[in-house]
């Protein structure tokens, strides 16, 4: 196989780069080691915040790209057909001594170029957030911050890239990079060799390993675990903005925020771990999330009953402490886009543009396509979104829009079929594309229905259906198999 630019990694960074490249007349391929887009790491389990840009030190690449990225998101989300809500963020000071830190953060934001930052007093703060800790003394309000669904964004980017000619290769893991005379020639994968002129390393947690395949070993990626708690949509409106505590050295702290889908999300913790595959939650971590959440919103402590799920994600923390986005004299043709920690989601659209500039400098001729289509048509969710007129119209066209499969999120069979047609092959793939199984019963009711639909549509035996690929099989045996004895 042969391509011109090979992007390694199907997370938000890799898909944003692939989609940006699809605007040009160049052959682009993307490899992702997991069975689906956004399955691997940081993109799957992420707070989903589009940051205003006051957190990072002025002068860093992260600060620069975050502020620029924030501005692009409204248009970006509308092109991609994904929900984005610019709900604003509040950094909350709970003691008078914290007010100077608030001023410092505001000053840093202004130096980074963040618009419309302002300090608000207790009265206004409590009007904006009636459930906020009554001890709050002041807040830093950033109206430009917002929320998106990170995995939905990556899926949409991959779909739009594919629609514009990018080849997406799933379950394909880069195992080596072939370099000759100081130039990148090819990438070895578990599915054979892919010849390419350029390699863009957007391998997230594994970007240091891919980089070392190209002989560049001057940084490491440390997996920094973040644990989260998800609350029922019943609490929608409990908080209205992204609430941050006063930031610490290592992180922005435990947030309480509405998700773009209407849940309340609390988290993340920030603890470095050894294993890049360790997505386990811990009792200590979950307690820390609750403690942090209760500090901001004490009333949540009476709503343990409204918790519907817990999960953990890993952020790719680079030892350089800043994004590593650059090309090298040797090997030429290799570009690292590594250490894309927070605010990587916010910065993704600009990171993609930045990579285009680097590729041009590296000698790739990039000429705009005449017929690039920036618009990706989303899956319609008329009942989930309670758009009744639209529902009526769509059911008239296709009655499967009238068969509710997931009771909690009101997802219909048509949406599940759409997800499968767009490439979902697993329960999680359908969940990420439709929200079926993400509601209060966590798939208890819809799982048997969805397994049957997957079986029927993909023509595979029921025992082959997986949660998220690999060996995550759900139903291991047909009835009576264990009594007859297996081979």
């Amino acid at each position, binding site marked *: 196989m042969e391509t011109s630019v090979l992007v390694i990694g199907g997370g938000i960074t890799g898909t944003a780069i692939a989609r940006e490249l699809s605007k040009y007349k160049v052959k682009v391929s993307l490899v992702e080691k997991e069975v689906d887009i956004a399955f691997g790491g940081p993109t799957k389990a992420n707070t989903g915040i589009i940051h205003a840009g006051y957190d990072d030190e002025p002068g860093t690449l992260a600060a620069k790209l975050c502020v620029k990225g924030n501005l692009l998101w409204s248009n970006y989300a509308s092109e991609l057909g994904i929900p984005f809500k610019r709900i604003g963020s509040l950094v909350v000071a709970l003691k008078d001594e914290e007010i100077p830190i608030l001023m410092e953060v505001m000053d840093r934001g202004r130096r980074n170029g963040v618009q419309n930052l302002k300090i608000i007093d207790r009265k206004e703060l409590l009007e904006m957030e009636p459930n906020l800790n009554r001890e709050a003394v002041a807040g830093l309000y950033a109206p430009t911050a917002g929320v998106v669904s990170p995995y939905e964004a990556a899926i949409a980017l991959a779909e739009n890239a594919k629609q514009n000619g990018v080849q997406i290769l799933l379950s394909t893991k880069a195992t080596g990079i072939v370099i000759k005379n100081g130039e990148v020639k090819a990438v070895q994968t578990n599915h054979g060799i892919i010849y390419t002129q350029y390699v863009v390393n957007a391998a997230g947690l594994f970007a240091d390993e891919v980089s070392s395949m190209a002989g560049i070993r001057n940084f490491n990626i440390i997996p920094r675990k973040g644990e989260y*708690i*998800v609350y029922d949509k*019943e609490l929608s409106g409990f908080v209205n903005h992204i609430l941050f505590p006063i930031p610490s050295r290592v992180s922005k702290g435990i947030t309480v925020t509405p998700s773009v889908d209407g849940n309340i999300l609390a988290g993340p913790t920030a603890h470095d771990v050894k294993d890049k*595959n360790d*997505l*386990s*939650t*811990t*009792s200590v*971590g*979950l307690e820390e999330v609750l403690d942090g959440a209760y500090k901001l919103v004490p009333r949540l402590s009476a709503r343990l*009953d409204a*918790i*519907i*799920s*817990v*999960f953990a994600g890993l952020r790719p923390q680079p030892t350089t402490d800043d994004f590593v986005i650059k090309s090298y004299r040797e090997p030429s043709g290799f570009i690292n886009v590594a250490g894309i920690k927070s605010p990587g989601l916010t910065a993704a659209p600009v990171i993609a543009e930045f990579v285009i500039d680097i590729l041009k400098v590296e000698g790739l001729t990039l000429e705009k396509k005449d017929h690039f289509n920036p618009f990706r048509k989303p899956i319609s969710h008329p*009942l989930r979104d*309670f758009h*009744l007129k639209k*529902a*009526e119209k769509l*059911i008239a066209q296709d*009655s*499967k829009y*009238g*068969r*509710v499969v997931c*009771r909690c999120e*009101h997802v219909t069979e048509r949406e599940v079929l759409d997800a499968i047609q767009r490439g979902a092959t697993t329960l999680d793939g359908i969940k990420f594309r439709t929200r079926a199984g993400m509601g*209060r*019963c*966590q*798939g*208890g*009711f819809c*799982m*048997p229905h969805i*397994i*049957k639909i997957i079986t029927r549509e993909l023509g595979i035996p*029921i*025992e082959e259906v*997986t*949660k*998220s*690929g*690999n*060996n*995550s*099989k*759900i*139903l*291991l*045996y*047909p*009835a*009576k*198999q*264990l*009594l007859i004895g297996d081979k």
Partner: protein
Amino acid sequence: MKRRVNLVVIGGGAAGLSAAVTAKENGIDSVLILERNEELGGILPQCIHTGFGLHYFNENLTGPEYISRFVKKVYDLGIEYKLETMVLNLSPKKEILAVNQSEGLIKLQSDTAILAMGCRERSSGALRIPGERPAGIFTAGTAQRLMDIEGCIPGRRVLILGSGDIGLIMARRFVMEGAEVKGVVEIMPYPGGLDRNLQLLRDFDIPLYLRYAATFIHGRDRLKAVTISKVDGNGKPVRGEDETIECDTLILSVGLIPENEISKKAGVKIDPKTGGPIVDENMETSVENIFACGNSVHVHDLVDHVTKEGEIVGKNVAERIMGNLPKLRKRIYLKAEGNMRYVVPQIISGERSLTLYSRVRRPAFDAEIRIGRNITVHKRVVKPPELIPIEFTAERLEDLEKEEEITIDMGE
């Protein structure tokens, strides 16, 4: 144009069917059952074990046998029902919005409504069990459906978390399918299921771990093991007293939650103790002409009781439609305290004899249930898994003080 009906029953399980049948038998012609599943019967078609109907029919029936008697009545009486029909909204004025594949959006205006949506199972996420999130974790009811309706076995080495009835029944079910059940793990010092279901563990030599909690889930793709830990009196794990049990399947039987999303949309007040609507002795909710019965009011332990409650509601709704049952005027609020976890109905008139249903927090022997200042009811044994009926006879009612709120309490 909205279609008009006298009665809409939301949910075609045991509660909804008996309510609909009784309403029809009491002279209400336009009754409509809305059911979101592919068939009538609620959970019972997948409950292929026996133990149903001992009280109501004086017979020992399987779930499908039990419920088919009511489904047949629905057919025989010509009661209208819609399957695979999801109710999206119910307004306080009893306007109903529902959807299905053949009719699309359905708009109805009903005089009365019966909430009979049943309950759902508490999920692993709600328990906040630390660890990984592999395939192989199922709620007991989902596993039961997969085995008994879809014909699949989730796995061969099974651990059951929670000693509720469905968990115990599934323990036996897995053994009968040739799987190995490693044990049943219960956080409380006493089991959560009925005695007759606990016998199953003894019959099949399945270990019961009391005062143990699941404290870590192992396995990236498929479940590999579950660590369980001994807990102290507050349910907190005791350091060093844990054990890791290898298994490919974890079954959760850790509580049922009344389903009341529709009730909340209609503005029905919910009792935080039961998770269901606050009802008066007619089983009417806080919204006039909306009644409720079955597991969406509170989780029952026997379907026989659900059926009886459905009958009471069906009869009351029929009386209401005919103008013979005014809204309860005198209202005495019952408040469960101490070891009494809840009491249903929460509101009585004090003028009519009835049976109250209650649950305790902890087991007790020779228990004295005090109702107000003057009434004491003696029970030999009370246990959390068993619903406690309290007969309110005319005689007892005479002793009841005439106050707005009466406490139902049990000394420790």
